[in-house]
């Protein structure tokens, strides 16, 4: 993404990067953080601090730009690095690893991290790589934690793109 930002949006973007995103250690966590500022219903980004300093529109555009940049970086990560980042994120969540992996494989919450405007191949690569990273992490779990390990340990098939609901086989 090589968009030319206007001065106000550029300032807002620099501020976002230096004050907020720089404190988040991994690119996957940065992506999840940025995506969490987006309204699911409207697709509009909200950030109180940034909006009060630069205006809601400039703040929204700056976050949208940061989202696209961060998403691109994460989608193009080598699979090994993405797996490491996902494992760190899972540990940081303090959730039971098996429960975390099951939830991510079933509900596919990572799909909300995809920007609205994105290259189709990049979005598919991201989803595919997360699926693979989850499968690798599940494979690495000690057998004691994987009591109900079956072929289903690998991710279930993707839900029908026409259906608004995830599959639950």
């Amino acid at each position, binding site marked *: 993404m090589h968009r030319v930002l206007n001065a106000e949006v550029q300032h807002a973007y620099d501020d976002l990067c230096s004050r907020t995103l720089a404190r988040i250690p991994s690119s996957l966590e940065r992506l999840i953080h940025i995506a969490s500022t987006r309204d699911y219903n409207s697709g509009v980004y909200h950030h109180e601090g940034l909006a009060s300093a630069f205006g809601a529109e400039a703040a929204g555009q700056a976050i949208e730009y940061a989202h696209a940049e961060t998403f691109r970086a994460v989608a*193009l990560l080598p699979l090994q690095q993405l797996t490491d980042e996902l494992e760190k994120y899972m540990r940081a969540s303090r959730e039971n690893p098996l429960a975390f992996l099951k939830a991510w494989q079933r509900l596919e919450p990572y799909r909300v991290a995809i920007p609205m405007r994105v290259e189709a191949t990049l979005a598919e*690569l991201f989803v595919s790589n997360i699926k693979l990273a989850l499968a690798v992490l599940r494979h690495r779990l000690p057998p004691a934690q994987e009591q109900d390990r079956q072929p289903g340990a690998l991710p279930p098939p993707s839900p029908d793109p026409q259906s608004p609901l995830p599959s639950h086989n």
Partner: protein
Amino acid sequence: MPALFIAIAVSLFLILALFLRAVGDGRRVRAGVQFEAEDDSVLADSARPAALQRIFARDDAEFVAACRNPELLELFAQERKELALRWVSRRRQQMIAIMRDHMRAARSSADLELSSETSLLFTYGRLRLTCEALALCIALFGPHRLHAVAAQAKSVASGVRSLHDSMASRRGLGSA
């Protein structure tokens, strides 16, 4: 002599079987397409090779192989194959759309040059053929085993763009 005919028949049958398999794979993949390219990113998608390079990346295949788990390996092969076939399918659709637009514009053009139109048609045919060959190779072997094919795929991507540019410039000349 009969042995030659039998060999030719077997070869033709084999080629037909491989072709049908590739077509079948393509259909299954298209049925699962999840992300449609934005209108303004259609050519951008083909012009940016970074995602394509990752689909064919050797280090990802080596990482999964090091896990020594057949299920993981199978999942990896399946995911990469689907990604690559979707990519090829998009390029094919772009080429068809570009050609359709050009044909529509050419019908109303008064000063068509036979030589340049033939050249464009030849380029289109070559790209389509390369696309089909790519799809066949990917369906048969998977992209992670075909690092050399990555260069061919990149040439298809840049070919689609130059085809688009050539046809746009022809239309520009025609309407001027």
